[in-house]
């Protein structure tokens, strides 16, 4: 393995985002703007390859620790990569690669594309940073870069709706970031260190039984801050606005990327940083509330992207529910659902983008009868919709089934029942969307609508194939997430690997 692979996975997209404006000035002068776009795609694919390159080492049970500036961890910043990080890094970089290919065509008609690609690479770099870092303050910094580039990407088209959505996202997100900073400062006052492994060790010495009162405050502050990013229910209000207003490619990256990263940070805080697995009960309750509210709100939406955003909120509830059950099967199911959620949520947003690209609207009342014009998109959307609502041969069924079994085994039959009902509601609102977009009568002005271009079809097709493969061979998916489960339950191994037996 290349020894510097972890840092290169962050630095290469970061450097790419700094190089993109310079390259774009050159390419604009010679009227060859495609070169810039291909450069961006190449950078994202190199990042994906670096993550894939780290994969075998981590999956064989090692924890990669990379020390920045050769400083030993409690004093210097380090990158620590275990099974959990690598799963998230894989999802993020894979989806980013597909989104960048998709953007080639989707964003073609927009102006100021160099800013778009700069922000896209910056978002990727910061997501990789949040994922791979082993230092809590570094995590906060990358988290803020991620948030700021996300705000800018939402406002990219500068319409009234994107500006309004971005303002709401930004004020709520900044409040959340301030709470996280306050939580970090309380953590520092409690343990005097900000390395994740060091904090974990010192907290395990302090002990969580009885819990120091300041730890309750810290946990509440950090959870609030990161729950805003994953849109758990009392904090979800920004999400539908932002996803509706953002370009669909960006919405796909948000739904699959930032949400996954947010869930990852939550898991890292609960299981590794503070080692308070007992919080699972709270996650179950919050997860089910999130699930129900998201699904019920999605039922009455008129805009496709808004509907998908509420559906994303509801799916995050499933992940938290699965993880909250606390059993091995539950956590594996939750992580498997995290993977699946990224896949089909990206697929659905890309389909919405393809429709918007050809028709120019995402309003369900105005659409209709498009299955004759866009048969491939219709088929892919149907696959995504069936997968997300947990209909058998697709991947959503596999992970939801695991979560149901785990719930019944854990003796939480009520929440399992709730999850099944929400699954039915999910199918209901997505059938409404399919009916409104692809079936029914076709308005006269849509008669000349063409199928989406191939560069947009290809990433969607790839994701749809993944949906089917992971559904038909669910044990493959369980194999992918089981290193993450092992890492999640191995707090001592993490501390020992990072601090080197101090």
């Amino acid at each position: 393995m290349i020894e510097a692979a972890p840092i290169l996975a962050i630095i290469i997209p970061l450097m790419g985002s700094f190089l993109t404006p310079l390259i774009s000035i050159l390419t604009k002068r010679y009227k060859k703007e495609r070169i810039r776009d291909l450069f961006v795609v190449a950078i994202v694919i190199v990042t994906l390859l670096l993550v894939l390159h780290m994969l075998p080492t981590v999956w064989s049970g090692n924890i990669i620790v990379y020390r920045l500036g050769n400083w030993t961890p409690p004093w210097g910043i380090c990158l620590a990569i275990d099974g959990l990080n690598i799963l998230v890094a894989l999802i993020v970089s894979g989806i980013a690669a597909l989104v960048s290919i998709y953007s080639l065509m989707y964003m073609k008609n927009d102006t100021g594309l160099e800013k778009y690609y700069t922000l896209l690479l910056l978002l990727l770099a910061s997501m990789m940073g949040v994922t791979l870092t082993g230092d809590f303050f570094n995590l906060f910094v990358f988290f803020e870069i991620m948030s700021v580039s996300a705000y800018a990407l939402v406002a990219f088209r500068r319409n009234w709706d994107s500006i309004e959505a971005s303002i709401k996202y930004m004020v709520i997100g900044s409040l959340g970031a301030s709470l996280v900073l306050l939580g970090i400062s309380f953590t520092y006052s409690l343990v005097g260190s900000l390395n994740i492994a060091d904090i974990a060790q010192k907290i395990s010495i302090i002990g969580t039984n009885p819990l120091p009162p300041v730890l309750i405050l810290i946990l509440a502050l950090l959870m609030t801050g990161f729950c805003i990013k994953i849109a758990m229910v009392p904090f979800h209000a920004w999400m539908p606005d932002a996803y509706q207003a953002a370009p669909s490619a960006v919405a796909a990256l948000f739904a699959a990327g930032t949400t996954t990263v947010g869930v990852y940070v939550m898991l890292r805080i609960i299981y590794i940083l503070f080692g308070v697995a007992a919080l699972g009960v709270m996650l179950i309750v919050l997860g089910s509330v999130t699930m129900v509210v998201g699904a019920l709100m999605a039922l009455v939406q008129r805009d496709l992207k808004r509907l998908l955003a509420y559906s994303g909120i509801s799916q995050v509830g499933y992940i938290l529910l699965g993880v909250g059950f606390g059993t091995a099967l539950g956590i594996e199911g939750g992580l498997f659902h995290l993977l699946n959620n990224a896949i089909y949520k990206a697929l659905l947003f890309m389909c919405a983008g393809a429709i918007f690209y050809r028709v120019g609207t995402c309003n369900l009342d105005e659409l209709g009868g498009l299955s004759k014009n866009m048969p491939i998109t219709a088929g892919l959307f149907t696959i995504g919709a069936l997968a997300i609502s947990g209909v058998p041969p697709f991947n959503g069924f596999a992970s939801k089934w695991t979560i149901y079994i785990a719930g019944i085994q854990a003796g939480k039959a009520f929440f399992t029942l709730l999850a099944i009902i929400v699954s039915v509601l999910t199918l209901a609102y997505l059938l409404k969307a399919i009916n409104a977009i692809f079936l029914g009568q076709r308005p006269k002005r849509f008669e000349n609508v063409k199928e989406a271009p191939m560069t947009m079809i290809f990433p969607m097709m790839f994701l749809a194939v993944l949906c089917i493969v992971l559904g038909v061979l669910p044990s493959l998916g369980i194999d992918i997430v089981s290193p993450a489960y092992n890492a999640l339950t191995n707090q001592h191994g993490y501390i020992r690997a990072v601090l080197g037996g101090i």
Partner: protein
Amino acid sequence: MEFGPGFWGPIVATIVMLLGAVFAYLMLLGSRRIAKVRPSIAKRSTYGCGEEVKPEEVTADSEQFYSPIRRVFKPFYRYIQPGHSGKLNTYLLWVVIGFVVLMVAIALVLR
């Protein structure tokens, strides 16, 4: 073909489902031969209370699409949905309330 503690043979099930889909499609083809697919103008005018309804006007309103479900979850749609009013201050208030709720919940769980 066991997956987890439950029994679920994904490949067998997929093949069965594919067969079912093929069978259903054949039935559909058979039925097409007997019955007409398109709703005739006479039928449409029956649903439109005798008025002439154009094809593109026959779409259901997507917000009222599931009105029975709306009726079942009436308290939700009466009290929670209007909360999504688009007012930034309301949303920020939610964040603060949620923070307090989280703190109380954590204190109760980890006591």
